[in-house]
């Protein structure tokens, strides 16, 4: 993390230095461009570019003057006047909508950042043009510019839409939710009828506080289970999958393709059908229970989903059913890549099967599938479907806050906080903490991956 922030700071410092140098060495056209964007290109008869920059600046100033500034200024309070009804006249006065204020504030802030980026580009543009003219070259015409969008600048054309999509549908909502974590936006402060406002670190304090109205114990219970689940889910399916692949690949086994197909079918069938059905199968009145009672294994039906321990174990076991075929599919291809002479020489040295597995197969698999293990682990930390469809997070308990249960992961808890108790402020906190858990595990694991530490290991 530290290295990254150093990088970012380094980039910023480099940019500022570059801007200063451009100003110092620039001619008057360039210098005016610091204030009026696109002035330089326009004076140098590069009209299309100049006009584009100028238009961006005009549009931005117009937006800021009409709405932007007021949007930003309201951000400090998130609204002061609540919607209320005059008790005498029954007239409703519509007040401020904190949700909209926050949302438009965030949007305006993002626009400002974008504007600064364009301003920076405008300076770069001037610098480039000056250099070209200094060398006696001629500036590209508008047609050349358009053509370059399909050639030298083809990457810009390709990335424009996807980057814009991510900006609007990921970046803005996430900044918004990070802000919500520092407000009191919940069921009692529901926009538009009620206001919400900044509360600093209150929500995080509540989340970490034990006793009182704190949620420390709920949070730690869920966090620990999330980590335990991710660990077991990842490694059980991993080793199960490799074992199955080895079993099918075993010399002398016929119809390999048929066996593989049987297991692969589970990947194809939509999870919500199979998982919902399996969850009902293990219910108190489900098939498993009724047959177990019939055969006399159980005295009476036992609700697996009503007890924390059995529910947790059952989820990990049932997850094998989902995950093993996937790993098997992946491992089958990889196992064939292991150089056969490794096994050959091991056999000559008198190694038995288990030794070969331990010394050749496993190290090789761990080496090549390191990245998969990492993404699978972080994916399981956020594995909404399996938990939600199998147990719904239950069994719930009065000891746990917000309708959460003993098999809830951070993400399913987050979902329940949003949907069932509309506690957006805590949901946002949980979201941020989920991010931190994922980021920290990724960072720790990434630096230990054998394929990162030692790229040539098996080549």
């Amino acid at each position: 993390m530290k290295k990254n922030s150093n990088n970012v700071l380094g980039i910023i410092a480099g940019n500022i230095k570059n801007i200063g140098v451009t100003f110092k060495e620039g001619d008057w056209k360039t210098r005016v461009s610091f204030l009026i964007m696109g002035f330089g290109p326009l004076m140098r008869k590069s009209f299309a570019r100049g006009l584009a920059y100028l238009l961006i600046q005009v549009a931005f100033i117009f937006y800021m003057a009409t709405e932007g500034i007021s949007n930003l200024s309201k951000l400090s309070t998130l609204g002061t006047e609540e919607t209320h009804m005059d008790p005498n006249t029954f007239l409703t006065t519509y007040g401020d909508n904190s949700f909209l204020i926050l949302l438009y504030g965030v949007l305006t802030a993002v626009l400002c950042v974008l504007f600064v980026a364009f301003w920076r580009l405008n300076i770069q543009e001037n610098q480039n043009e000056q250099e070209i003219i200094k060398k006696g070259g001629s500036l590209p015409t508008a047609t050349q510019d358009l053509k370059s969008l399909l050639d030298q600048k083809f990457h810009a054309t390709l990335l424009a839409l996807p980057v814009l999509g991510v900006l609007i549908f990921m970046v803005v909502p996430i900044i918004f939710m990070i802000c919500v974590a520092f407000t009191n936006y919940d069921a009692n402060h529901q926009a538009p009828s009620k206001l919400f406002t900044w509360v600093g670190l209150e929500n995080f304090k509540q989340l970490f506080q034990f006793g009182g109205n704190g949620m420390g114990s709920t949070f730690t219970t869920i966090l620990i289970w999330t980590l335990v689940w991710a660990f077991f889910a990842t490694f059980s399916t991993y080793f199960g999958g490799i074992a199955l692949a080895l079993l099918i690949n075993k010399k002398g086994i016929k119809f390999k393709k048929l066996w593989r197909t049987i297991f692969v079918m589970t990947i194809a069938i939509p999870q919500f059908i199979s998982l919902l059905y399996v969850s009902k199968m293990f219910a108190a009145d489900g098939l498993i229970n009724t047959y177990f009672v019939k055969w006399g294994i159980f005295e009476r039906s036992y609700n697996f989903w009503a007890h924390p321990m059995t529910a947790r174990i059952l989820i990990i076991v049932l997850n094998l059913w989902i995950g093993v075929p996937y790993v098997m599919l992946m491992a089958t291809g990889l196992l064939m890549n292991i150089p056969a002479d490794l096994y050959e020489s091991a056999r000559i040295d008198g190694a038995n099967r288990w030794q070969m597995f331990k010394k050749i197969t496993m190290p090789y698999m761990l080496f090549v599938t390191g990245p998969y293990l990492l993404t699978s682990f972080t994916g399981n930390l956020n594995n909404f479907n399996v938990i939600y469809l199998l147990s719904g997070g239950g069994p719930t308990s009065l000891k746990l806050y917000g309708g959460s249960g003993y098999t809830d992961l951070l993400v399913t808890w987050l979902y329940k906080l949003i949907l069932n108790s509309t506690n957006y402020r805590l949901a946002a906190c949980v979201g941020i903490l989920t991010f931190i858990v994922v980021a920290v595990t990724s960072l720790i694991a990434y630096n230990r991956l054998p394929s990162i530490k030692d790229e040539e290991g098996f080549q």
Partner: protein
Amino acid sequence: MAEQKLHKQHTALGNAIAYILLVILSIIWLFPFVCIVLQSFRAPSEGGGGMVDYLVPKTFSLASYSWLFSADSNFVKWFENTFIIAFFIALGQTCFVLMVSYALSRTRFAGRTFLMKFWLVLGMFPGFLSMICLYFLLKNVGLTQAGAIPGLILVGVASSGMGYYVCKGFFDTIPKTLDEAARIDGASRARIFFTMLLPLSKPIIIYQALVAFMAPWCDYIFASYIAFGYSKSYNVAVGLYDWVNTNDYQGYFTRFCAGGVLIAVPITALFMALQKYYVEGVTGGAVKG
């Protein structure tokens, strides 16, 4: 001689154990599907279409299936919704992923590594943290409830550029010398992309489209939130989940099974037909991360 015979017996025994294991595992893995199919054919006269304590129905009937196509159920509408969503998401997502992958794999530009790092970090946030905000943004332009289908397509496609990893990994394996040779011959980057790289990438295009097409059939979170309470805009996952988890799921159990079969059969058939490409994508993606 004796030793060789012993060895033969040994392998025969090993194979027998392996076969027995495989058969048992296959039964475990197929059991739920067999159950779903059997239950879907159970006549409503047995247990009123709810859960029963035996596996094989005493009378087979198509009642649950015919109910799905009757005017009482929205199943056909849900199926149609999901198909439309899946089709357009597959189309849009594949285009976006190909575009991003090409740009990140074949071209070098300022901010490239920053963009990749930024998206990597962004991807660590739980996706539906953005749900509340997106719901409002979509509602403002009329893309929730009645308009949930275009809304869901938009959400599914818009930020899909972030899932470029597998596809970029594939592009990275295509030698760059091909590009360079074409550029010396005067081909523009756009031309290289369309006439050279895309035809070479058939397996990865099919993989991307297949994965993108299958995901909406399981999408519960966003679909239920954006179509909230408007049954005509549900997708199959939301609709069938409600059938199982409403309090009278007893009556809907066989119908759920019948619906499940009708969804699973075409999806599974499609998957099996394109299995080869899926395996390639999964194996490649696992190694490159």
